[in-house]
């Protein structure tokens, strides 16, 4: 009965979402305050019923209710309870329910947190969010309900969750990534509401900024977690594959990054308004496109679990409606938008425009590269593969260029900045960055490898130019204490996020170039020396896990001849599916990871073992964490709350 309750509350949530998408919107147009006031309770209602649906699904998993198709396909009695919970989003149907539940969470957050917004704006925003919720709920109910039953004869045992997904990464990665994806719907809804109301002003930018920052922070964290998970779970130590599914999350991130910067210009200077709206629309449309690419099964590379064309058509229809509708609205309304101020070619505005152009071009490049094989195949022009060599060849130069501008923009001023001023401010950071980059690169490896030297120089350039800006702001203060405490949270957030970019760049350059690996055939007693470390293979023993059996290797590691630690890579067979998995053994460190994976058992008790030395690989995720922290810190700036109050006073 519980799964039926789930279906029932999903239907109720749909009803409320439909009302939410109509009533407050009409109220906003007719000036009927009572109708607009319905927006908040309705948002809470949608959240309430979707939460019940989530709880029902969780209950079905925890009680091993294999009469539910989705549970039978993705769970098993032997599965530990925490994986049963995360199995909710281990497949297509459940992950869509998670998607729409998170949409309800964001809607609720907007309803609760935006007490100070003008009522007609909040009504329109929540209405647009209601429409998105309603569309996804229709999709779930008609094509992919997680509550469907196997009746009358149902299996006594579930097929088990895919072993690759039985991992901490699955517990945290999808919800985080979805928080980011879906969070972009808030910026989208604010943009649509602004277009509808015709009030496309700096206040609108100020309202959307904190929301966009938080969504962007989640997206950064989600992508970072995905990369980290792939690194330790897939068994060969890669951290970014330029796979279409990864690109689907990178594209919204790139546009959202552009959006954050563009919103800043719109708020502070009242220019780029229509461009900012376009970015907000694009960012969310790219999230939807990502969902479409992944869910419809058009990606030949990744035959997603939903190869059902019905689902694909539904999402395609929704995509066309959302993109077409919002662009049409944009075309009608954006023309009347007036900019409020002027700026010259050498100014912060122009530099941020350059940032936006570079980010959108890189996003377009990723889009072209991702869709090109699909289009060529569809047009019968032949099958090609677009992979890492293509993306790296174009993405790396664009991003390097962007980092150069990132440093210049750090010290630039609004409206007009004399080029001579920029030179005066930046010659020292530039010289220091080149010196430090060359010296560090040489000191680390004893050679001057081009990409590493470039990467380190760019990272130092970010750090030094932002230090210069900090110094500019701090030196006019009376004391050091005042200088440190008087800067706003949003400024510190910005510093942190840009520092995150520097850290990420170091990680990418170092691990891409200086990764080393050895594939060895080892029998017990064999040893291998490699980068100051000696690896001694002690053999393999059988280990029983809750739902798997494992061959666990034992490898003693010596550092410069001294015992350092013992590592246990595993090769597991998951009994329910008879599937084998590599559990790598990791020795993480700030400056290097040791990474050991077991391959196949060879003849005479020998094993193929892959040893890797990954310098600075942790810096990739450290960078993502810093960006996340930066995004959240700036969103928490008190000025957003204060100015919301002002907006109310003015309204």
């Amino acid at each position, binding site marked *: 009965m519980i799964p039926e309750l789930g279906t029932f509350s999903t239907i109720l949530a749909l009803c409320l979402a439909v009302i939410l998408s109509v009533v407050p919107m009409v109220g906003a147009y007719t000036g009927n305050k009572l109708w607009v006031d319905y927006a908040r309770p309705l948002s809470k209602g949608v959240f309430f019923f979707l939460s019940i649906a989530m709880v029902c699904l969780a209950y079905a998993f925890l009680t091993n209710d294999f009469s539910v198709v989705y549970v039978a396909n993705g769970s098993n009695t032997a599965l530990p309870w925490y994986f049963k919970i995360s199995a909710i989003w281990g497949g297509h149907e459940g992950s869509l329910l998670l998607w729409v539940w998170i949409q309800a969470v964001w809607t609720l957050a907007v309803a609760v947190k935006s007490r100070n917004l003008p009522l007609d704006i909040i009504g329109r925003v929540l209405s647009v969010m209601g429409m998105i919720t309603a569309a996804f709920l229709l999709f779930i109910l008609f094509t992919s309900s997680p509550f469907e039953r196997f009746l009358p004869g149902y299996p006594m045992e579930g097929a088990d969750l895919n072993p*690759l997904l039985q991992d901490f990464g699955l517990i945290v990665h999808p919800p985080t990534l979805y928080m980011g994806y879906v969070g972009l719907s808030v910026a989208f809804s604010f943009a649509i509401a602004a277009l509808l109301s015709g009030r496309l002003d700096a206040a609108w930018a100020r309202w959307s900024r904190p929301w966009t920052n938080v969504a962007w922070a989640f997206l950064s964290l989600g992508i970072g977690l*995905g990369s980290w998970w792939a690194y330790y779970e897939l068994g060969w130590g890669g951290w970014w594959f330029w796979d279409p599914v990864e690109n689907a999350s990178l594209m919204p991130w790139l546009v959202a990054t552009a959006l954050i910067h563009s919103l800043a210009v719109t708020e502070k200077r009242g220019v780029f308004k229509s461009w900012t709206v376009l970015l907000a629309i694009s960012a969310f449309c790219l999230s939807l496109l990502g969902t479409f690419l992944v869910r419809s099964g058009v990606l030949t590379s990744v*035959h997603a679990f939903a190869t059902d064309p019905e689902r694909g058509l539904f999402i395609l229809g929704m995509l066309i409606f959302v993109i077409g509708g919002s662009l049409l609205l944009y075309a009608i309304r954006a023309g009347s938008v007036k900019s409020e101020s002027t700026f010259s070619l050498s100014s912060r505005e122009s530099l941020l425009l350059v940032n936006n152009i570079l980010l959108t071009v890189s996003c377009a*490049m990723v889009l072209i590269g991702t869709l090109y094989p699909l289009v060529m195949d569809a047009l019968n022009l032949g*099958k090609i593969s*677009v992979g890492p060599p293509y993306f790296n060849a174009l993405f790396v130069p664009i991003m390097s260029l962007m980092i150069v501008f990132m440093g210049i923009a750090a010290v630039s*001023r609004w409206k*007009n900045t004399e080029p001579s001023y920029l030179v005066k401010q930046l010659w020292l950071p530039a010289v220091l960055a080149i010196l430090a980059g060359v010296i560090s690169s040489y000191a680390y490896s004893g050679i001057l490898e081009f990409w590493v030297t470039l990467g380190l120089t760019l990272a130092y350039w970010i750090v030094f130019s932002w230090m210069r800006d900090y110094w500019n702001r701090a030196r006019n203060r009376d004391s050091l204490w005042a200088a440190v405490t008087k800067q706003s949270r949003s400024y510190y957030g910005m510093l942190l996020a840009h520092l995150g970019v520097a850290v990420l760049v170091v990680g990418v350059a170092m691990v891409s170039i200086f990764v080393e690996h050895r594939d060895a055939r080892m029998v017990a007693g064999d040893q291998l020396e490699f980068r100051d470390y000696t690896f001694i293979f002690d053999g393999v023993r059988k280990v029983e896990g809750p739902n798997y059996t494992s061959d666990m290797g034992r490898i003693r590691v010596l550092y410069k001849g001294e015992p350092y630690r013992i590592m246990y890579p595993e090769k597991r067979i998951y009994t329910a599916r008879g599937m084998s998995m590599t559990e790598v053994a990791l020795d993480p460190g700030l400056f290097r990871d040791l990474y050991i994976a077991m391959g196949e058992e060879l003849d005479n008790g020998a094993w*193929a073992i892959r040893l890797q030395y990954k310098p600075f690989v942790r810096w990739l995720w450290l960078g993502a964490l810093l960006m996340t922290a930066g995004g959240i810190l700036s969103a928490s700036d008190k000025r957003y709350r204060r100015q919301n109050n002002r907006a109310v006073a003015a309204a």
Partner: protein
Amino acid sequence: MIRAILMLCMLSVVALKSHAGFETYEFSSVEGERRYAQLARELRCPTCQNQNISDSDAPLAADLRRELHRMIESQQTDDQILDFMITRYGDFVHYRPRIAPETYLLWYGPIVLMLIGLGVVLVVAKKRKPRQPAQSASSSTKATPSLSEGLTDDERKRLQSLLQQDDQK
């Protein structure tokens, strides 16, 4: 979700074995080993879902690795090896699409977009240029003076007090 999906796919197509499939080839030169690693990452396993032959453990990928090792050891150039692979398995096998009329858009599209973007920056900046360049240029390096232009005395006073307020916060 991304990885989850990626993984699910690989699982169903790649034989139900472990992932990292690798042998232990010996190379007569360090250069050969480097080229092997590079090419094994650029060649796509024809039977798997988006995996290079270095990461895949499908039998065909193992064959290709053996072939690659043999060709490198017999002193063939990268071009010869790639030609051989593409003749046998089609363009699909190489992750770096060759530059041909049908891939011009792929390779040159982003470059054209970049140039358009550069044009946009120049045009926008020109359109938004302040009307009296002489006046604002003189006040540009110091941020504030231009703020009070065109204000009445009253307004200027209010602006001053607001700015001070902001400083105190």
